[in-house]
């Protein structure tokens, strides 16, 4: 199988590498780019642990063939903190106790980020919908919803301050 030239923007940086087109975006991120923050929980679209943002929208990287993401702007969990400073969503997850084992956390944070980027003042229902494609087996979700609410409030305040 001839390799496919995979060019995309990953966490703001251009990447250009040959990939076997039968590999999933998840494999290219984890293995070729060493971005192991994106997790595999099921490999079939059910758990959301592999969530990344493709052009700002959350998708399951285990269902995307790598070449299908060529030309896209890809955000993984490694691209959420800016210059070593945690994003308010990450801070809120820590403070609200929304992280337990942490395996769902990267996907949850990206799902939450996609929501808040679009809808800075979400209702609880909107938050629940936004994370409804992400399974968490530890927390029971209550603290995750709380964290997203907290992050939204913080972001709104930051906005207000500018």
């Amino acid at each position: 199988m001839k390799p496919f030239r995979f060019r995309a923007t990953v966490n703001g940086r251009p990447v250009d590498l040959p990939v076997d087109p039968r590999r999933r975006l998840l494999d290219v991120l984890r293995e070729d780019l060493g971005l192991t923050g994106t997790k595999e929980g099921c490999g079939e679209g059910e758990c959301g642990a592999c969530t990344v943002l493709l052009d700002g929208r959350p998708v399951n990287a285990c269902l995307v063939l790598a070449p299908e993401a060529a030309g896209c702007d890809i955000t993984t969990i490694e691209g959420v903190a800016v210059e070593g400073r945690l994003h308010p969503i990450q801070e809120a997850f820590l403070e609200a106790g929304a992280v337990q084992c942490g395996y769902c956390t990267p996907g949850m944070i990206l799902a939450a980020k996609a929501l808040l980027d679009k809808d800075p003042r979400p209702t609880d229902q909107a938050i629940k919908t936004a994370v409804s494609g992400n399974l968490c087996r530890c927390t029971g979700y209550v603290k995750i919803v709380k964290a997203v609410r907290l992050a939204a409030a913080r972001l709104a305040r930051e906005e207000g301050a500018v």
Partner: protein
Amino acid sequence: MLPPFDYHRPASLAEALFLLASLPGTKKILAGGTDLVPALRRGDLSPDHVVSLSQLAGMREIKEDKGFIRIGALVTFSRLAEFPLFLKGPYKLLAEAALQVGGPQVRNQGTIGGNIVNASPAGDLLPPLTALEARVRVCRQGGERVLPLAGFLTGPGRTCIHPEEILAEVDFPALPERAAGSFVKLGRRNSLAISRISLAAIVIRGEGGIVEEARLALGAVAPVPIRARKAEALLRGRKPSPALLEEAVAAISETVADSLGDRPSAPYKRAAVRGVAREALIKADPRFASGGC
């Protein structure tokens, strides 16, 4: 890693159709991949070629045109759920169905074309499209055919599409303002749940507040979506009321019973469809709950 196949990414529909017509061996079309990629991973499918539609931007459009609504096959569930025309009024059932598919990630990837060609008995867009009396436009190199969805779907996981054909578009006739639609799905939980039963309802009001026409399409109770014809006939020409609702609900339950026979799920679905039907009809026309005009 998935089983071996050659990957193609045509830049136009014409090129895609050419590839499909000329490539030797078995081929599969890739749209959002939400059904295809898991099937490849499980080894259920091992095509020689995978032809990606990702570059065919023209198939991502939704248009209103000469009394028809046309939806490109690559339109995603998320796009359907956000499209202004589908947010209220008669076409709301499409957005409601799209919004109940999988979770946000699956809705961002999965397409209407994939949902149709995958032809799962639980495919959530199929009942609304059946109620909308949709047609599909299927292209092949040097030609195309347009056929009703009802004839296109031939069984669970089966359609009459040929391997060298692409489903390009779905369309359905525009509905009058006095029509209203709804979609209700019963799954085992609220998200990431496959439909156990679903019902898409369209109610068109006529003069004097009567039901001029009702179209009711049931999902997940037969190999393909079925219309609840008995209930549709019984509603025609009558005024919605709680009493009429119960008649219709009973008729819908009968249709489900006839369809399922003595399958193990029949007792459950016969009963459960009543709740689904009540909710869908009331959402389509609140007078089913309250009477009045």
